[in-house]
């Protein structure tokens, strides 16, 4: 087993608003190995984005509380101050965001946006060589005429191109880890594929680890090595991609898979939507978060919160149906 680059222990995120305290991420543990691509899936609002931002403390501190440990190598990022975090962000951990249309500063030239992060972390580099380095980066992410594009403003580029620029920005400082928060959601399907190919390609070149957050299982299937399925702030299933798709264990994962169209399944097989809504995250949750929507719900599901049950070496699932106490 390879060394883990990221080890998250009991991560909790609370959002404070004037009326309530939202428990968005509820005690998550996971590990990320070097060079691995970890997919995190779940529906909107399940806390996956919050978790990703919490990893690099991009949640505004006066609006949110964070607890738990985030071990990045030897460093516990959870205990880092804002100033310390600034040395980690970009250089150690790069980020790619969901919407390339709004994630680039509209009033700054593209070149400048790439160069500024690089110069921040490598102040010894001359601006001139940083500039040519940025051109190389643009070239690497597949942007034609990079020299000219460097001087363009974001609004002149298409969405796919902008996402490539985002990737270039994220890669600029050669981070060991990239957090990609729904990088393809806002793009159309052909562009999605190109971007994913690009990311895979780059990963093999640079040996970067990637945490890929998405609600799209096809993206997971395409890129990831391992998957965490999140629901209501918790990890409900953790598995390798193969295990997940061939043998999903948690009822939520099963329903999730049923809810997406598959080309390899019979056309007559209907898509089954998941009924109901996820629980309110402002309330403490003593039960299984999914039990209200779960067709297999049992009494215990209403009364206790299920732990993760080990099903295999890399496969865990948080459902009482795996509970050894249950009568066969």
């Amino acid at each position: 087993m390879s060394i883990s680059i990221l080890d998250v222990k009991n991560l909790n995120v609370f959002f404070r608003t004037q009326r309530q305290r939202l428990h968005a991420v509820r005690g998550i543990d996971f590990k990320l190995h070097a060079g691995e691509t970890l997919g995190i899936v779940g529906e909107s609002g399940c806390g996956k984005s919050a978790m990703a931002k919490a990893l690099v403390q991009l949640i505004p501190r006066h609006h949110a509380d964070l607890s738990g440990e985030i071990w990045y190598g030897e460093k516990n990022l959870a205990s880092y101050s804002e100033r310390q975090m600034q040395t980690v962000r970009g250089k150690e951990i790069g980020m790619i965001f969901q919407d390339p249309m709004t994630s680039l500063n509209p009033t700054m030239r593209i070149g400048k946006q790439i160069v500024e992060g690089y110069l921040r972390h490598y102040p010894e580099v001359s601006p001139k060589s940083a500039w040519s380095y940025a051109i190389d980066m643009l070239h690497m992410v597949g942007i034609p005429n990079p020299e000219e594009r460097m001087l363009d403003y974001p609004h002149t580029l298409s969405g796919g191109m902008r996402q490539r620029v985002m990737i270039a920005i994220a890669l600029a400082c050669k981070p060991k880890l990239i957090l990609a928060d729904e990088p393809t959601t806002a793009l159309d399907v052909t562009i999605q594929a190109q971007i994913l190919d690009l990311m895979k390609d780059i990963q093999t070149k640079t040996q970067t680890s990637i945490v890929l957050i998405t609600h799209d299982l096809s993206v997971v299937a395409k890129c990831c090595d391992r998957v965490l399925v999140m629901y209501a702030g918790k990890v409900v299933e953790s598995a390798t991609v193969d295990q997940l798709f061939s043998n999903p264990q948690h009822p939520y994962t099963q329903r999730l898979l049923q809810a997406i169209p598959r080309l390899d399944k019979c056309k007559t097989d209907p898509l089954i939507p998941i009924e109901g809504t996820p629980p309110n995250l402002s309330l403490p949750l003593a039960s299984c978060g999914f039990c209200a929507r779960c067709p297999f719900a049992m009494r215990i599901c209403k009364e206790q919160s299920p732990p993760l049950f080990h099903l295999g070496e890399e496969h865990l699932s948080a459902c009482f149906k795996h509970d050894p106490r249950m009568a066969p």
Partner: protein
Amino acid sequence: MMEEQALFQPLDRASQLLVEESEVVAPISYWKDAWLRLRSNRSAMFGLITLTILLTLAIFAPLFSHHTYYETQLHLKNESPSATFWFGTDELGRDLFTRCWWGARISLFVGITASLIDLIIGVMFGAFAGFVGGRTEEWMMRIADILYTIPYLLVVILLMVVIGPGIFTIILALTLTGWINMARIVRSQILQLKQLDYVKAATALGASRSRILMYHLIPNAMGPIIVTVTLTIPSAIFAEAFLSFLGLGVQAPIASWGTMANDGLSAMRYYPWRLFFPATLISLTMLSFNLLGDGLRDAFDPRLRR
């Protein structure tokens, strides 16, 4: 063992629904939510309460006062605040307390009405110009520039001669050019906002232009609009005082906060209460309007909802 087994009994459908209902929090309407958020904003509530008190006093205080705003008692001139005269008296021996609240009626009425008119005209004009763009915008903004440069005093003097002095003439005079600033700021916001995708999306969905303006553009320009409104209220109050100074404002013995502050200014070193009370009331009103305005903006801003 039996108990444990019972835990693993499947739930029936009915109880499942029950769970569902108890889990779902009753939905809160947009307005109620805004109100709740406003209520929890301490500074906004301070503004709201202060304004309510000021308005109540403006309406009722003169009714309960033993003095009138016009009765002069020359032997009691420039008295400092006391039990009889809570705010002291002015240079003609009139009770400043009563005059302050009479002044509040005038000033608040002039200030708020003028700002509201500025707001409506300015926002409509600016938003329309910014949204339509092209030649129409160019023309509209030039017309605004021209209006802005015509010497304002000339127009006011003409109005006073033609319509005659009075509070509505003053409001008319104040709004004549007052809306232009608002129009400029709104236009610049709209220019920026109309580049955004959601506007394009709304257009693509076939939303009418007026709908896009009313529901998509103007609400998003609310920040600068509120800030500008909070500027126009005091400037209207003081513009009225300036007009009085030139003989074009409210006619004595009616007072407004602006005229009282103006009169009190020369007495600042000798009878400070004559400046202090009207000036403090003006500042307090402005502070309240501003705090409330900010609070309202935060309360209605969907992006700040969590």
